[in-house]
């Protein structure tokens, strides 16, 4: 029964809503802090090592080095640096390892073998070198942290390449990196209601090591959907190794086009 003040209420509700929304928007940073941190960790120029072979590329994903956190062991710190090309580990080295006396010996024995295992396995699930358990454990810890960093940075950078240029695809092509005998195959363009979709895959050792969209719908909502869907489709393609991947909900047309072009790329790679 208290007197109601409709106008005052309208003004208050509007002011509260507008200022609340503006406050929320202004509290958001202009760039993703998580991605920025991962990208910042990637180059690490000061650490006294040979320059990475394909230094020209921008992010960690195409080619570059990632340094893991230093892991403390009883005999000293172990820190691993990985060289990554096209999403695969092509090199591993220990930037720090226990030194002095017996430790030197153990390091000399263990680290080269651990490096090899890391490249071969592509993950941190490697065997410890017997007689150098502490060093091995520290190595694996630091390796895992480096791998985590790669993982953290790849979806973001995948979104960038997926959305547009396709220029980064060139760097991974067959010629220079050699050892992995990776080659890229580009699928046929699939037309969708919102524009063409074209997929390029990198095949190495009979497996898809990388997938990206060279063309995808752009502009307006389509641009948004592309940013949403393409990175996930890329991941799914690499994980599945074939074109039998799930469509991203809310981006059905793009997903369908993607699968078509992916299938054609796989056909070419197989034949």
């Amino acid at each position: 029964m208290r007197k109601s003040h409709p106008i005052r209420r309208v003004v208050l509700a509007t002011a509260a809503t507008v200022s609340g929304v503006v406050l929320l928007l202004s509290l958001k940073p202009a760039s993703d802090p998580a991605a920025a941190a991962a990208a910042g960790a990637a180059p690490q120029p000061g650490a006294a090592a040979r320059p990475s072979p394909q230094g020209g590329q921008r992010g960690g994903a195409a080619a570059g080095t990632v340094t893991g956190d230093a892991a403390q062991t009883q005999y000293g710190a172990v820190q691993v640096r990985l060289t990554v090309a096209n999403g695969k580990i092509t090199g591993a080295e220990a930037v720090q390892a226990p030194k002095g006396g017996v430790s030197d010996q153990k390091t000399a024995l263990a680290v080269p073998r651990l490096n090899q295992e890391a490249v071969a396995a592509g993950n941190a699930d490697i065997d410890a070198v017997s007689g150098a358990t502490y060093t091995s454990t520290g190595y694996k810890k630091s390796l895992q942290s480096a791998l985590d960093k790669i993982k953290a940075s790849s979806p973001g950078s995948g979104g960038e390449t997926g959305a547009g240029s396709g220029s980064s695809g060139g760097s991974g092509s067959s010629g220079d990196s050699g050892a992995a005998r990776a080659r890229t195959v580009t699928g046929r363009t699939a037309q969708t209601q919102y524009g063409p979709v074209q997929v390029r895959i990198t095949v190495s050792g009979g497996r898809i090591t990388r997938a990206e969209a060279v063309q995808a719908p752009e502009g307006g909502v389509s641009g948004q959907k592309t940013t949403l869907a393409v990175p996930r489709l890329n991941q799914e393609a690499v994980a599945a190794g074939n074109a039998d991947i799930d469509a991203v909900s809310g981006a059905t047309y793009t997903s369908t086009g993607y699968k078509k072009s992916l299938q054609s790329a796989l056909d070419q790679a197989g034949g």
Partner: protein
Amino acid sequence: MTTTLAGGRAARRQTMRRIRPRRSPAVPLLIAVWAGAAAVLWLWWHNTPAIADDNGRILNAGRITGLLAGYLMALVVLQMARVPALERRVGSDRVARWHAMSGRYTLCLIVAHVFLTMWGYALQAGRTLGDVVQQTVDSVNQLPDMGKAAVGTGLFVLIGVSSVGGIRRRLPYDAWYHVHLLTYAAVFLTFWHQITTGNDFAVEPVAKTFWYGLYGAVTALVLWYRILTPLRLNIRHRMRVEAVIEETPGIVSVLIGGRKLHRMGAEAGQFFRWRFLAPGMRFSSHPYSLSAAPRPDMLRITVKAIGDHSSRLRELAPGTRVWAEGPYGALTAQRRSRGKVLLVAGGVGITPMRALFETLPGAAGDITLLYRANTTQDLALWDELAAIAEERGARLMYAVNSPDGERPDISAENLQRKIPDVDHHDVFMCGPPGFAQSVYEALREAGVPARRIHHESFEM
């Protein structure tokens, strides 16, 4: 008088048993609503790593308003689901006001959401603010479920326009009501684009599950309390008009018989929504308070013939089937916190007061009824009231206009003179809005705290 429904001692004992002053659940409910809104905002916060530029800001403002609108829309429907906790404990009138308020706010959010999102998309596509209309057309054509959403939004705007004060007053009640029922269709139509195009639900399966849960729960409550519960009630009690009695010129009582009516759990002070299955009355239901304590075989409502519907009540034939929904309303004995009670009735507002006057437990001298009408002729149910007053030792007073038409002065001083300890009373009040407002002010001035003035008002 034949219309007297003697509830008497038995009814009073029943009411006495039911008195356990309970706190209204309004505060915990409001806290839950705010917590839900915070959770929705958190969902947005969690799924938005960064906002790069103004375009992003506009799009994200669109997302925030859209998420909040989707959340509130479910609550706006929930408020009209006739959930007993809301209708009987918070009070139908208060919930209806919440509904109107949150409905208006939600409509504003929807409009803001559509505009901001389309503006943002237009900018993203390299267009300008002027292309918002074209962008909207494109989006409706191209995105999944956006056609449905556009129709739904149109319905929302229609419903909103039909509820604007001036337009609503000019519309017949039934027309307004049936337009309002379109809300269900509009909510259904706009629901799907939230799931298929909403970033937060595409990315977060958990959020999607919760959203389905929210809307599913509201749908279940609506089906249960608006359809199944009334069905069961009417199948069980089979109500029919027994008689129609003219109390005073323009005020009629309708006696309604049925089976085991005491099992409906209705209390004095509550109302039902009545639908009389007679030609021309079938399609509208109206809230009328019980004007006597419910008896196992009989209910009574007393209605002043003001509108179309209420004037037609006079012609109801005995035996007409009655479809009732209820009981609703929180203006019952459980609101009471003191021994002494003052009941204030204005005109036909006497109906719930008459039922309370009869049934409120109290010793002789505890209960006072103040009845305001234009003339003594208009004091409907007066004989009954006098009989109850005599039986219970309650005080009965009336205030009518003086012969030259001057209104009686219900002021703080007069109240205090007539009822010296008025500030120690609980006050129950029912009457037209202007009357209620002036009595409320007089009571406050006479020292009655606001929390002890119990009033039901269906003014928005």
